[in-house]
């Protein structure tokens, strides 16, 4: 297909691509103090199909016209009485409103120095006088097309940024809200804290609490495979699923098995989520949990004893219809704390020279435990791990902290 969007005779369409945007309607301002020159350029442009050509008779007139309505291209004469072309350029380039406005300077300047001076002042491109029709039209169309493409990209980017920001707001709302957490803390006597760093605008990690039917508190941390928008969409689906199935939460292994069954129908081949879900029973001093390939829960016993890493093996959700999950327990006596985390820490520490991740994490937890208040301990751990995973991290990074 021949593009009919460029100048009518097809001269100087810049590139032969069919994806070039239509530019014949783009506003062009011709600045020249000699009427004959303005008429010549105007005729050439109109013959080539351009429909929106206006004129300025000198530098001051040009600045005024541009201020009234910014054109998509300025064709500027250099030698003019009063404000010359150099001055017009300098003033345009000093104003950020005109960033990216292409200025095509028509000049008889043939010396390299003069041409460089024009470029230094902010010229986008030059056309030599006497004007050659084909050259003029080629340069006009290429600069108008570039201008239009960049504008399209900018508009696309702005729209996408706005959409992502709104989506992020929705996503944030899925996470436990402060007042709900405070109520659960009051009811259970536990301290619940979390910390999250995302690798992109939208994340694939989510955590939350569930009040079980027998009045205990369940905590989950879910890490969706992949990143960005697609992971976030899947997180939203699983978040709904988790809360629909929350009646089963009294039995962590059975709960994961049901989530897995339903997740398999929701997700396409290869999509999966790692998840840990556990119930805290402050009275009996036990954290009973089940894992679908999540990271090991870490128990920090009271009195500075060494941290205990719970087993976390299990098939991620969404891969095998009849996956069975194992119920496991960690002691959770008064004075203990429990850390759940996504696997970003493991992957990040693997890359450093810190050596074995569990050793590293254990040392960090023990040193943080020396802090007198538990909030301080969590802040210290989160701060140190932030510097390990980086901000933004390569993968979404989430910590959930429960202290008894």
């Amino acid at each position: 297909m021949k593009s009919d969007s460029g100048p009518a005779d097809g001269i100087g369409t810049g590139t032969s691509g069919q994806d070039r945007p239509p530019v014949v309607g783009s506003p062009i301002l011709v600045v020249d103090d000699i009427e004959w020159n303005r008429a010549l350029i105007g005729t050439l442009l109109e013959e080539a199909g351009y429909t929106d050509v206006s004129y300025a008779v000198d530098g001051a007139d040009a600045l005024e016209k541009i201020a009234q309505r910014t054109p998509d291209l300025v064709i500027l004469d250099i030698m003019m009485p009063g404000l010359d072309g150099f001055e017009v350029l300098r003033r345009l380039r000093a104003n950020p409103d005109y960033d990216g406005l292409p200025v095509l300077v028509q000049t008889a300047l043939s010396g390299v120095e003069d041409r460089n001076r024009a470029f230094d002042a902010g010229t986008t491109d030059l056309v030599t006088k006497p004007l050659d029709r084909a050259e003029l039209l080629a340069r006009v169309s290429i600069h108008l097309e570039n201008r239009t493409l960049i504008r399209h990209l900018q508009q696309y980017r702005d729209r996408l940024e706005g959409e992502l920001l709104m989506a992020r707001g929705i996503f944030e709302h899925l996470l436990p809200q402060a007042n709900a957490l405070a109520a659960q803390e009051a009811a259970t006597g536990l301290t619940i804290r979390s910390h999250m760093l995302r690798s992109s605008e939208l994340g694939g990690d989510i955590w939350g609490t569930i009040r079980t039917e027998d009045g205990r508190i369940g905590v989950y941390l879910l890490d969706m495979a992949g990143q960005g928008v697609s992971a976030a969409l899947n997180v939203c689906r699983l978040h709904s699923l988790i809360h629909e199935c929350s009646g089963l939460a009294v039995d962590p292994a059975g709960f994961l098995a049901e989530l897995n069954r339903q997740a398999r129908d929701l997700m396409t081949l290869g999509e999966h989520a790692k998840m840990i879900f556990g119930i805290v029973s402050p009275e009996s001093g036990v954290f009973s949990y089940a894992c679908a390939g999540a990271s090991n829960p870490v128990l920090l016993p009271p009195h500075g004893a060494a941290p205990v890493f719970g087993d976390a093996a299990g098939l991620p959700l969404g891969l095998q219809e009849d996956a069975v999950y194992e119920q496991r327990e960690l002691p959770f006596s008064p004075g203990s704390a429990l850390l759940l985390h996504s696997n970003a820490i493991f992957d990040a520490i693997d890359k450093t020279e810190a050596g074995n991740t569990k050793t590293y994490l254990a040392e960090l937890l023990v040193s943080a435990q020396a802090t007198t208040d538990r909030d301080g301990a969590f802040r210290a751990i989160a701060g140190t791990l932030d510097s390990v995973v980086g901000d933004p991290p390569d993968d979404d990074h989430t910590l959930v902290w429960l202290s008894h």
Partner: protein
Amino acid sequence: MSEMDYTIENKDQEAQVRMTGRLTFNDHAKLRALIKEMLSNPAKRQILDLGALEFVDSAGIGMLLIAREELSNLDKQFVLRKATGQVKRVLTVAQLGKLITIEE
């Protein structure tokens, strides 16, 4: 941080794919191309040698599962071999041995 790359060597009834670098979200197109090559390769057994693979993320695991499914649809066997370090840990924690043949 090197992107994933691979070489394919055909031996008897097996095709051996040696994977290097880091297999992540960003390698989607390349892994898609590899799966296509494995699907059209006549060998019944497609071995993925992970000995030189440094890292795999969850999206990479997802793509390996897609490979397994598509190969099994064509009655081809898909085997992961020699995983070490982080790659081995990820395969183990996710118990992927239940879904894909994993050999030392």
